[in-house]
């Protein structure tokens, strides 16, 4: 499958730009339960991704995703960077397989990415991580695929699911820190990694609608 100029590469570009322009917000969210660097890390990932896109204009989807994964692993090896890289690398394999294309392929790619990310990061659904967002996105995409929605419709639904999942993390306990005596700093704020996923998907869905 060849990456259409407005297709995969275009989506990745839009997602990268959206994430990069949310640097301060992602730092802020990561600061409540973590170390406040998610925006910095993801900006580095976005830069790496855009360099790959520029250097691989004619690449197949499989090669493109694999190159993105490798670049992110090299240039943004934080927790989230490594996990996102893992997701890209595994998704690359899926899009390389023969299959239905369109929404079905997208659903399969996200499903594979989620599995790989969970295998690597050992987080379960409900642990207040990006995995919660991925889970919601996968469910949504599978539903859209079964229902025969268009790619644009599926992306919109997936973005909405990611936003809702992000909002839901605001009520969850982070797994680190005992927070036994006083309310936790993170309570009431969504997980930063989940928010990053939602920002990326919303931008892609908005762009797809043009």
């Amino acid at each position, binding site marked *: 499958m060849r990456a259409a100029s407005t297709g995969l590469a275009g989506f990745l570009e839009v997602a990268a730009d959206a994430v990069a322009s949310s640097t301060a917000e992602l730092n802020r969210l990561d600061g409540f339960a973590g*170390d*406040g660097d998610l925006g*910095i890390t993801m900006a580095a990932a976005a830069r790496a991704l855009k360099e790959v896109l520029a250097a691989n204009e004619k690449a197949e989807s499989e090669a493109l995703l694999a190159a993105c994964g490798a670049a992110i692993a*090299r240039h943004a090896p934080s927790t*989230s960077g490594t996990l996102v890289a893992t997701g890209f690398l595994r998704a690359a394999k899926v899009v390389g397989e023969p299959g239905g294309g369109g929404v079905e392929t997208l659903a399969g790619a996200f499903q594979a990415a989620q599995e790989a990310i969970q295998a690597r*990061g050992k987080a379960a659904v409900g642990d207040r991580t990006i995995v919660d967002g991925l889970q919601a996105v996968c469910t949504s995409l599978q539903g859209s695929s079964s229902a025969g929605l268009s790619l644009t419709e599926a992306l919109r639904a997936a973005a909405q699911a990611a936003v809702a999942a992000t909002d839901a993390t605001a009520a969850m306990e982070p797994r680190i*820190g*005992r*927070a036994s*005596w006083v309310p936790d700093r993170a309570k009431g704020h969504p997980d930063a990694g989940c928010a990053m996923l939602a920002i990326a998907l919303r931008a892609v869905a908005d762009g797809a609608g043009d």
Partner: protein
Amino acid sequence: MPMQKIINDPNAFVDEMLEGVLLAHPEDLRRAQDPRVVVRADAPRPGKVGIVTGGGSGHLPVFLGYVGYGLADGVAVGNVFASPSSEQILEATREVHGGAGVLYLYGNYSGDVMNFDLSAELAEAEGIEVATVLAADDVASAPRGSEARRRGIAGIALLYKVAGARAEEGASLAEVVAATNAAASGLRSMGVALSPCVLPAAGQPTFDLPKGEMEIGMGIHGEPGVRRGALEPAERIAEQLLAHIIEDLPYRRGDEVAVLVNGLGATPKEELYILFRSVREILASSGIAVRRTWVGEYATSLEMAGASVSLLRLDDELAELLDAPCESPFVIRRGAQRPRKEGGR
């Protein structure tokens, strides 16, 4: 951007710091192909187990500062508070491998674990035997029963000391792992933060901590602790940290320990000694004997104010390994033999 830092481009923070370190200590350290990979000038040492560490920047002397004689052999240096890449860890691994295998010794943070694990797989595929010991000494980072989820803080200094001394003796990888695990299993730490720190590339404190307050159990990146409240006297702080630490292992009447009182960055050494004074008093009244003492900055968080206390339960073997000499540009211990007492050296 109100950031009171002596830096140039915030994004060059790590690379310029590394350039400075290598320019200052060319006889002790050299860089590998990747400028973020630094090893002992004499690496690899044939027949010696290599020790590789690494993690995010902003914690000097952790991690880079423990590359030296009797400590670690190589380090992969990440961005501020971010893991190095698996490629960098792999390069450090190759550089220090002297044929006797390599120990990965670092803090239990998810980004680091993933990248070290990935590197370990790649190294094994190249025929380099790799074993891993994690520092997970922060009792505030996860409750009892979830020890494997705990993060590593300043106690790692004592693990470097133990692992490095055993490796320097010519022990096998299994023996180095055994000694380091023995130390890690008797090591517990907890800290208190009195101010946040500012990541150079972010330019903002990662959280608010109003003056007059403290957060007990805060992580070295500012991860939430167990309690935030009014700043209390050093004696009360020592009591609270030790209450958590002692009951956690637990350390018992009759135990012998090494104590490490660590400054997080902005807290003056004077305060660390005031804190140590209380720590020692409380341990004495608990029947726990302090056999070795380390007070200073062993793991920092940029300019964060605060301190942590670590206890390491000692047996004769661990005490001896702690007493061996070590030397890096950042951490020197001459060792327990004090020849000058016997009349000059």
